[in-house]
C-alpha cells in the first residue's frame, strides 16, 4: 500500500539515515517548575554553603541596584530604566552559573546580570543614562551589549559559542530573553542553529508573565515555553524563577552539559515583573494590584533569606554586612550618577567606521565650528 492510502499511519521503519534519531521523552520539561527552596534538599551539600551565601549577597545587591536605578529615573538622571525587581534570582543565577571565560548575552532588562558578573554598576547604566549607547568592553568582560531589539542577540550567542568550539576553546554562551521575545523569528532561528550545530549555548527565558501589556496567553499557545525546546531537538527545563538556588542549579547543569559537548538547553524560569515595564509604562492598564501582591509573597530575596536563616546558613551579622555592602554600592552609584556626565559631541563621528569617510570629516568640521561659535557666544 502507498503512504497516501494510509492516512494517519505513516511510518518509516527503520528510519532512514537522514532522519535524526531523537527520543522526545528526555527532552520534555517537567510539568511543574523545579524548586529547591522549601524542599528537603541538602543545600549545604549542593550547591554548598559558599554558593548559597554568594547568591544571597548578589540578590540583596541586585534588589538595591534596582531600587537605586529606579530612584535615578525620578531624578531625571536616567532616561529610562526597565526594572528587574522580582526577577533578581534569574539575573544573579545567570551570572553565577558562568565561568570566567564564558560569555553572557543580555537583553535590555538584564542590567543586573551584568552587574552580578562583576561589571562596574555605573558603566552598566550608560545606555539608560543616555550619554553613550554602551559602557563596558564586551571582550574584556565577556558580556555582550544589552540588546534592545528583542531576541536579536540570540543568534549572536549561538555564533560565538560555535566559533569558540571551532577554535577549540572551552567557552559556553548564555543568552537571556523574555517571554515576549520567544515569539520573534530570531528566537526560532537561534534555537534551530544551536541544536543543529550542537553549539555550547544555553538559552534562559525569563517568563515574567507580560511583554509590556501582553500576557503570556496571548503570546503562545504552548503548554510552556520550555516545551518549545523539544521541537528543535534540545532539552527544555522549567524552573521556579524566584528560587535562586533552583535557577542556579538548573542553569549550572545546562552550562556544564554544553561544556561537555552535550549541546544547547532551553530553560524557562517562571517569575514576575513587580514594577511596570519601564518607568514610562502604566501597568494598571493591564494588571491588577491583587495579582502583583500575590507575587510579593513569593519574593526571591525574601524566599532565599528566610530559608538560609532557618537552615542556619545566614546569621544576623552576615545579613547586616551584606545589607551594608549593598548600601555602599548604592551610595557609590548615586554619587557618580549625580555628577553630570562629560558630554563629547565630537564623539558622534568617532567609531562610525574604522576610518572616517570624507563626508564624516566634513560634518565633524561643521559641528566643531558650531561648538566653537557656541563657546565664543557663551564666553
Amino acid at each position, binding site marked *: 500500500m502507498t503512504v497516501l492510502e494510509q492516512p494517519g499511519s505513516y511510518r518509516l521503519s527503520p528510519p532512514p539515515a537522514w532522519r535524526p534519531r531523537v527520543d522526545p521523552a528526555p527532552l520534555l520539561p517537567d510539568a511543574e517548575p523545579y524548586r529547591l527552596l522549601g524542599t528537603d534538599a541538602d543545600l549545604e551539600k549542593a550547591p554548598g554553603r559558599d554558593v548559597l551565601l554568594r547568591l544571597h549577597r548578589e540578590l540583596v545587591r541586585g534588589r538595591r541596584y534596582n531600587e537605586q536605578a529606579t530612584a535615578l529615573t525620578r531624578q531625571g538622571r536616567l532616561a529610562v530604566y526597565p526594572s528587574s525587581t522580582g526577577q533578581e534570582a534569574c539575573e544573579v543565577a545567570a551570572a553565577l552559573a558562568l565561568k570566567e571565560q564564558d560569555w553572557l548575552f543580555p537583553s535590555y532588562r538584564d542590567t543586573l546580570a551584568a552587574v552580578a558578573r562583576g561589571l562596574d554598576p555605573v558603566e552598566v547604566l550608560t*545606555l539608560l543614562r543616555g*550619554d553613550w549607547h554602551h559602557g563596558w568592553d564586551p571582550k574584556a568582560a565577556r558580556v555582550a551589549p544589552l540588546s534592545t531589539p528583542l531576541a536579536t542577540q540570540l543568534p549572536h550567542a549561538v555564533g560565538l559559542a560555535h566559533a569558540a568550539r571551532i577554535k577549540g576553546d572551552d567557552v559556553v554562551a548564555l543568552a537571556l530573553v523574555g517571554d515576549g521575545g520567544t515569539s520573534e523569528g530570531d528566537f526560532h532561528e537561534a534555537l534551530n542553529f544551536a541544536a543543529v550545530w550542537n553549539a555550547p549555548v544555553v538559552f534562559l527565558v525569563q517568563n515574567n508573565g507580560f511583554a509590556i501589556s*501582553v500576557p503570556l496567553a496571548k503570546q503562545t499557545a504552548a503548554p510552556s515555553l520550555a516545551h518549545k525546546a523539544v521541537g528543535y531537538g534540545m532539552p527544555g527545563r522549567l524552573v521556579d524563577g524566584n528560587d535562586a538556588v533552583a535557577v542556579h542549579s538548573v542553569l549550572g547543569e545546562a552550562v556544564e552539559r554544553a561544556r561537555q559537548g552535550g549541546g544547547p538547553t532551553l530553560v524557562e524560569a517562571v517569575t514576575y515583573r513587580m514594577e511596570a515595564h519601564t518607568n514610562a509604562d502604566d501597568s494598571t492598564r493591564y494588571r491588577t494590584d491583587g495579582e502583583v501582591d500575590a507575587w510579593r509573597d513569593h519574593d526571591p530575596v525574601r524566599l532565599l533569606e528566610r530559608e538560609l536563616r532557618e537552615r542556619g546558613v545566614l546569621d544576623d551579622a552576615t545579613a547586616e554586612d551584606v545589607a551594608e555592602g549593598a548600601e555602599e554600592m548604592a551610595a557609590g552609584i548615586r554619587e557618580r550618577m549625580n555628577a553630570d556626565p562629560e558630554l563629547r559631541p565630537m564623539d558622534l563621528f568617532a567609531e*562610525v567606521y574604522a576610518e572616517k569617510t570624507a*563626508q564624516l570629516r566634513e560634518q565633524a568640521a561643521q*559641528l566643531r565650528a558650531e561648538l566653537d561659535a557656541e563657546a565664543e557666544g557663551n564666553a
Partner: protein
Amino acid sequence: MAQALNRAMRDAMAEDPDVHVMGEDVGTLGGVFRVTDGLTREFGEERCTDTPLAEAGILGTAVGMAMYGLRPVVEMQFDAFAYPSFEQLASHVAKMRNRTRGRLPMPITIRVPYGGGIGGVEHHSDSSEAYYMATPGLQVVTPATVADAYGLLRAAIASDDPVVFMEPKRLYWGKAEWDPEAPEQVPGVGEAVVRRSGTSATLITYGPSVPVCMEAAEAAREDGWDLEVVDLRSLVPFDEKTVVESVRRTGRAVVVHESQGFAGPGGEIAARVGERCFHYLEAPVLRVAGFDVPYPPPMLEKHHLPGVDRVLDAVARLQWESDWVEGGQ
C-alpha cells in the same frame, strides 16, 4: 496628533468592517503611545488585536488578511523594531500587486512612529523613511500637522496600495487646536502643500522638520529672506508639481530632513529639483540633514538633529553661492 490618528482609525473602522488594527500592545494598553487607545473596547479584540511579539509575523499575516479582502492597519511599535518585518515588506507587500498583475492588491497601512527628539535610548529614534522610499511598490507618507494626521491616515487606509505611514513621534503631543468632530480630509496620498508662501527661496521638508522650517522662515525675515515652506506630506508618490512650481518661482531651494544626508531622501529630491529647475536656479540645491551616523544617545541628539540654525546657515549659503556664481561671470 496622537488623538487625530486615533480618531482616523476609529472612523475608518466604524465605516468599514474590513478595517482591522493589529500590533504589539495596541489592545488593552492602547499602544505604547496610546494611539490605538479604546479601539479594542469599541470594536472588540478581533478588530483591534494584540499580536504576539513578532514584526515579521504581524506583517506577514497582514499580507494573508489583505489577500482575503481585509484592510489591515498594522502598528510597528518603533522605527527600529520594524526591521524584522523587512522581508515581508520588500518581498511581498511591495511586490504583490505587480507579481500578480493586479489580482492581489495589498491595501495595508503600516504605521511607523519614527524620528528623534524625544530623548529615547538607542533603537527608538531612527528615521527609516529612505529604506521604504527605496522599495518600489510602497507609498510613503508622513504628516506634520494634526489635521493632516487625520486626513492622511484616512487616505492611507482607503488606498488600495500599501502605505508606510511614518508618524513623527515628537509631534504626537503637540498642542495644536483641532476639532475631532469636524476633521478635515486631505486630497489623498501624493499631494504636497505650501505651508508658508515666500519669494526668495523654498524650504522643501516633511514630518518633524516642518515646524523647524516654519520657525526658520520666521527667523530669516530679519535677514531679509522671504522663505517659502513646502511640506511634502507624501514622499512616494512625490508631488513634483508643487515643488517645481515653488522652486521656479523662488529660484533657490534647501531640502531639510532629520534622516541622514548621504543617500538620504534629500538626495533624490535635490536631484529632481536640479533636473526640472536647472535654468531657474540661482544657487545649487542644498541639503540640511541629520549626520551620517547611527542615531546618537539622547544627551547628544540636539547636536545631531537639524535645527533652525543649521537651516539658516544653509539659507545664508544660498546667497553666498549666488554671489559667487555672479562674481565668476
